[in-house]
């Protein structure tokens, strides 16, 4: 029990994942700033942001809405993200082998933050949040199918093993999955999926600032918004970590290989950052057809290639 609590709250759960996620958030902002000829924030800026919201700013409750759901939603988001981080990071750090079929559990846990945001948005009673919530719902419909195809591809590549530990072991003993044509295709599709999961441009329409002023998060302030930030930090770490685990042979924590592990995560985050800085926001309709048609097509091609052993 105590060990489980430690896993959940300290390592590799809440504290660890959120801290690394905050640094990745700084990395993302700094790269963005450099691309845009700006200086960028100091290293600790994500922490300042978080603690200012948590400790200094007051939480204002919307008058028309359901306060209980509105306040619980961010907490659900953090719990969902933390649980997912435990299941993803334990096998990655070779602490616990997890259980058979944990990849599917991870898939479901990763959708919890998105659903919590929708619940919170709809509970706030704000029309802009409602528009944002409906957009997030449509977006989930768009990318979840594609994401499950990616996971199916990984499972096929790993001879029908459903657990992350075996997937990492297989890659470390052989070659990383990304070292084949189908692996590269799956990597591209997965990058776009997590771009949408993280609601980064071009898929940031649920919170489109210049259209619906942060949409789903418009009514959040203070500590409640700090919780959402926390969930976002965690997601910014564990989604790239999941890609590293599924396609790039996970982490090897012996000596100089630690640096290599860090570079892998930073590389994936860098790809996300560059995509978000070289594209305008697309419309929700375009996003759905992008995933439903093009990304699904690429994923299916990858599956066929895997069936032929490529």
């Amino acid at each position: 029990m105590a060990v489980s609590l430690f896993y959940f709250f300290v390592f590799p759960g809440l504290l660890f994942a959120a801290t690394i996620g905050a640094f990745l958030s700084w990395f993302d902002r700094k790269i963005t700033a450099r691309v845009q000829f700006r200086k960028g924030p100091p290293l600790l800026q994500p922490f300042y942001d978080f603690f200012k919201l948590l400790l200094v700013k007051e939480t204002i409750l919307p008058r028309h809405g359901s306060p209980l759901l509105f306040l619980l939603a961010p907490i659900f988001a953090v719990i969902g993200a933390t649980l997912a981080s435990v299941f993803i990071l334990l096998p990655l750090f070779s602490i616990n082998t997890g259980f058979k079929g944990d990849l599917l559990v991870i898939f479901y846990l990763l959708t919890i933050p998105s659903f919590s945001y929708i619940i919170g948005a709809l509970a706030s009673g704000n029309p802009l949040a409602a528009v944002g919530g409906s957009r997030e719902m449509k977006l989930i419909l768009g990318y979840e199918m594609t994401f499950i195809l990616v996971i199916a591809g990984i499972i096929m590549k790993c001879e029908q093993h459903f657990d992350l530990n075996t997937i990492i072991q297989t890659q470390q003993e052989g070659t990383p999955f990304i070292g084949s044509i189908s692996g590269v295709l799956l990597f591209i599709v997965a990058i776009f999926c997590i771009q949408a999961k993280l609601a980064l441009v071009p898929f940031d329409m649920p919170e489109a600032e210049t259209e619906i002023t942060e949409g789903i998060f418009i009514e959040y302030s203070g500590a409640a918004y700090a919780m959402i930030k926390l969930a976002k930090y965690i997601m910014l770490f564990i989604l790239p970590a999941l890609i590293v685990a599924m396609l790039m042979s996970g982490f090897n924590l012996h000596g100089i290989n630690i640096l290599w592990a860090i570079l892998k995560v930073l590389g994936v985050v860098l790809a996300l950052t560059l995509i978000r800085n070289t594209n305008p926001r697309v419309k929700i309709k375009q996003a759905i057809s992008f995933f439903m048609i093009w990304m699904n097509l690429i994923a299916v091609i990858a599956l066929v290639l895997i069936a032929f052993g490529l």
Partner: protein
Amino acid sequence: MSKKTLIPIGPYHPLQEEPELFKLYCDGEIVKDIKWETGYNHRGIEKLSESKTYEQVFFLVERICGICSTSHPFAFANAVEEIVGKEITDRAKYIRSIIGELERLHSHLLWVGLAGHFLGYNTVFMWAWKYREPILDIFEMITGNRNSYAMFKVGGVRRDIEGTKIPAIQKVLDDFKKKADLLTGAVMDDPVIHARTRGVGILTKQDVIDYAAVGPTARASGLAIDIRKDDPYAAYPLVNWKVITAQAGDVFAKAEVRLLEMYESISIIEQCLEGLKKEKEGDISVKVTEIPEGTGNGRAEAPRGEVFHFVVSDGSSSPARHKIRAPSYVNIATFRKSCIGQTIADATISLAAVDPCYCCTERMAVAYDVHSGKKLMNAEELINLSVKRTNDIRDND
């Protein structure tokens, strides 16, 4: 199912830099109806102008708008000079046109950046604004100010552009051309920008004529109206340039027109700089001792379209009546055509595509009661309210 949601854009909203209120009545994501309220920015400039001398009015109208701060003095100068009936020197004409075109350059760049920002493409935003800086540096070099240049006066301009400054200006323009190529390429060739802006917020040529739209908004729909050609003033008849038009009438066409107009502006500036070299230095104004009785119409092509100033003079040192019409005043009305039936995402970029400028537009606001249709307050009541408030404040002290 006919219940519509009200999506407010304003009074303060990240989409617009100025206070205004657009009410989008939406069914799901589709905009079914649009209404707007302006009047948050009313400053009583026309009335204020009547209490200033002609020399002072230039500084006042320059402050109507921060971005197109030369177009208003330009139109006012044209109006007053029509009353006076004196031709200004060619050197002053060239300098006026240079200032006007530099302003168009930086205003269009500003719009391109903002349009990128509205689409969530912040890289374009930052790049466009970075490239805008050298243009503002030219302004600082020749006028002393980055904005609100105070260059105009009745009968000419206040400061000369000396021959020694011309090579430096030319160098900035040469550098800028490369950056403009880069930016134009980035916007015109990006498939995602095409997907977001093509076929969005279409205004047909007939719509533009019906709503009397002006400037790039009209030119993007294939209507070649440009005050610089239609009612030539300053040095525009003296140089070679063409009116840029596009046919599609959508947001992309508006961006295209603005981006290509930047090249025309550079060409005009270069020709004016050549023209300046032929004229005698220091010959920048004619002496105007009095403004006779009469009326004058002044028009100028601002970056957003036609600016119109109407001045009535009674022979005294200040205008008896000064009427201003800014381009956004007519362009805003086209939103009924461009936004209804679009999704919210498309409507917001359509709103931004005419480059609306509310502080230019706002002259007078009257509030009506929704049910009875009566004016909520007339002038007398407003004055009484003002007196009452002032007395309250005095009493509290």
